[in-house]
């Protein structure tokens, strides 16, 4: 019960109802010592609301209550409320007094009458038990007996004056005409609405085949209140109202801790993983491995020994586990150890709102740190647009305030375009991290791709990656761009192989060239050697030639000299012959 205490400064004392959401909407509950009118169609939960108000007063607030049943018998009301665990049997006739005041069906009227008898009885009972709270359930039944408008007004005025005088906090319930939630068809009701200090309208509508309950505070004298319709649910503990809690600072402590996505490369792309307590959204067409990514996240969480709740709106829990095993994600052991809890919402019918309450309850019971909802779109489709928005908001606010990491997938149908991403899922743009998985149709193949659309507060890769599923799990591969085309699948593989071959070829060619160069070098060296030898030979030959020439010269010189000597006519050392 996180209800703020009544503020005396406002001058208006408030009386908590024990219905958490309602006390939040009205900032403290119903006006103390005043009268509240609760209007609603058949089966809208009026009696349960009123009864809870009394039970709370009796059990917790130490304020005995009086329940006046004009329509259903008290025994039946007690029996019907058995399932809520309020322990009415123990309270009855001590702190909680029931009075059967159903008019007998064969009642004959003749002339004017009033509610004097009722006030006398109520007065006596109230003082006997020290009653502080009173419920007049289905007052319209009695009002209908009164012959004319004037009499109805007169009796209502009498009743109201009496209640004020007794300073009882009163809840009057009354049926509204049909499903419209508007009580204005009955003039006496409108009078009643003006008379009371607080008026609450309960609505039970069926929107596209799905039941939806809403509560709205119509007026509250002297107090501020949430004027919007708040969806509610009649659940295990009675009346449960979902209120969008405003994100007060301190309520959610933004964690800097990262949690793994279960896919190593995706963690790298996100700069380390998702933030703890963040809301992660995966969008994609059917079959783009959204559930598989949910599975990797859940498995990673369980391996960290964090309690995880896996809510599937599409398939049965066992099917999910089996299907994920085929891609190397083994949730079975975690399911057995109790770390993982699976909930197949498909098997449970109910309004979108009731699913939210159920998920919250399950998560709280289980002590969940991570919640996976696959896919959230099936769920939000069950609600109309406005309530879907509010619901997603509440889901995210709730998970943030509890520090739960929320992982949602959302299915896009074939008609959805990129625009749809922005509109129908506008609520989900509240997500902190948004990953889109897609198909790329190319060369007769469908290949999965993954890209990060946004990730608040984390540096993230802008690259599209190919998502490959195998027996050993999920891997992300680089994709090739060639000639402006993105290559994936077989084409990527071909390209990879072609690249590999090209590298090999280049290597071989290089080696070949080196060998050839070596050969040429060797050849040149040989040639250099032979030329050197030849050179030496030439030199030798040359010197030989020089020597021979000198010798001959000398010999011929000597011969000349001899001849001159013999002739004796020329000098002996003559230059030429």
């Amino acid at each position, binding site marked *: 019960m996180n209800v703020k205490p009544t503020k005396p400064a406002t001058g208006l004392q408030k009386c908590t109802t024990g219905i958490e959401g309602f006390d939040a909407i009205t900032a403290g509950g119903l006006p103390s010592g005043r009268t509240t009118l609760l209007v609603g169609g058949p089966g809208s939960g009026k009696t349960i609301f009123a009864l809870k108000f009394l039970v709370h007063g009796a059990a917790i607030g130490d304020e005995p209550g009086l329940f006046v049943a004009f329509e259903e018998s008290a025994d039946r009301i007690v029996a019907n409320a058995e399932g809520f665990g309020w322990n009415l049997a123990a309270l009855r006739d001590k702190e909680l007094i029931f*009075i*059967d*005041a159903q*008019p*007998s069906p*064969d*009642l*004959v*009227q*003749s*002339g*004017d*009458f*009033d*509610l*004097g*008898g*009722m*006030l*006398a*009885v109520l*007065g*006596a*009972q109230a003082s006997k038990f020290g009653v502080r709270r009173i419920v007049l359930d289905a007052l319209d039944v*009695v009002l209908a*007996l009164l012959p004319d408008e004037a009499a109805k007004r007169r009796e209502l005025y009498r009743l109201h004056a009496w209640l004020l005088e007794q300073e009882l906090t009163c809840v009057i319930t009354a049926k509204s005409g049909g499903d419209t939630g508007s009580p204005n068809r009955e003039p006496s009701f409108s009078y009643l609405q003006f008379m009371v200090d607080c008026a609450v309208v309960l609505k039970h509508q069926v929107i596209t085949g799905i039941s939806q309950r809403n509560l709205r505070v119509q007026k509250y004298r002297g107090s501020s209140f949430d004027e919007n319709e708040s969806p509610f649910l009649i659940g295990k503990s009675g009346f449960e109202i979902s209120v969008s809690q405003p994100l007060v600072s301190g309520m959610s402590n933004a964690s800097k801790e990262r949690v793994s996505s279960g896919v190593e490369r995706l963690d790298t792309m996100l700069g380390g993983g998702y933030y703890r307590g963040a809301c992660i959204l995966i969008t994609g067409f059917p079959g783009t491995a959204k559930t598989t990514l949910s599975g990797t996240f859940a498995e990673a969480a369980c391996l960290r020994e964090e309690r995880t709740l896996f809510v599937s709106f599409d398939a049965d829990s066992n099917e999910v586990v089996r299907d994920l095993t085929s891609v190397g994600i083994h949730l079975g052991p975690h399911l057995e150890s109790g770390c993982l809890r699976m909930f197949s919402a498909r098997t449970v019918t109910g309004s979108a709102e009731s699913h939210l309450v159920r998920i919250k309850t399950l998560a709280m019971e289980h002590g969940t740190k991570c919640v996976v909802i696959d896919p959230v779109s099936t769920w939000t489709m069950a609600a109309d647009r406005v309530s879907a928005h509010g619901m997603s908001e509440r889901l995210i606010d709730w998970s943030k305030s509890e520090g739960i990491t929320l992982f949602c997938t959302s299915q896009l149908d074939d008609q959805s375009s990129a625009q749809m991403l922005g509109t129908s899922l506008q609520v989900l743009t509240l997500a902190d991290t948004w990953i889109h998985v897609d198909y790329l149709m190319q060369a007769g193949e469908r290949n999965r791709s993954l890209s990060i659309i946004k990730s608040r507060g984390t540096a993230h890769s802008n690259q599209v990656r190919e998502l490959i599923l195998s027996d050993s799990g999920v891997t992300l591969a680089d994709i090739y761009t060639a000639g402006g085309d993105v290559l994936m699948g077989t084409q990527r593989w071909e390209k990879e192989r072609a690249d590999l071959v090209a590298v090999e070829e280049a290597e071989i060619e290089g080696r070949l060239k080196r060998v050839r160069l070596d050969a040429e070098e060797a050849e040149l060296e040989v040639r250099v050697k032979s030329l050197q030898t030849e050179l030496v030979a030439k030199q030798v030959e040359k010197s030989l030639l020089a020597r021979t020439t000198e010798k001959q010269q000398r010999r011929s010189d000597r011969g000349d000299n001899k001849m001159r000597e013999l002739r004796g006519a020329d000098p002996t050392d003559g230059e030429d012959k």
Partner: protein
Amino acid sequence: MSGPAAKPEAVKLTIYVAGDAVNSAQAIVNLGAICREHLPDRHTIEIVDVFRHPDRALSDGVFLTPTLIRVAPLPQRRIVGTLRDTERVLRALDLGLAS
């Protein structure tokens, strides 16, 4: 259950009134007149003020005033209001007196 007219049975009536409210006073007057005319010497009337005897009102399930209950003969009959329409009251009392 209407007894044969030849042998009139005793009729026990209880009227619940709310203090001195106008319609309660009217009901007492009207009831007196009806009984004098149609049930001479065979009726008893008890007047219960719910403000003085709220326990009686609770145990008898009387929440509207004035309320007339035919206590005997059984089964009980109930009429609420000032009893201004004699014919209707006689029919509702179911004693075979209505014309």
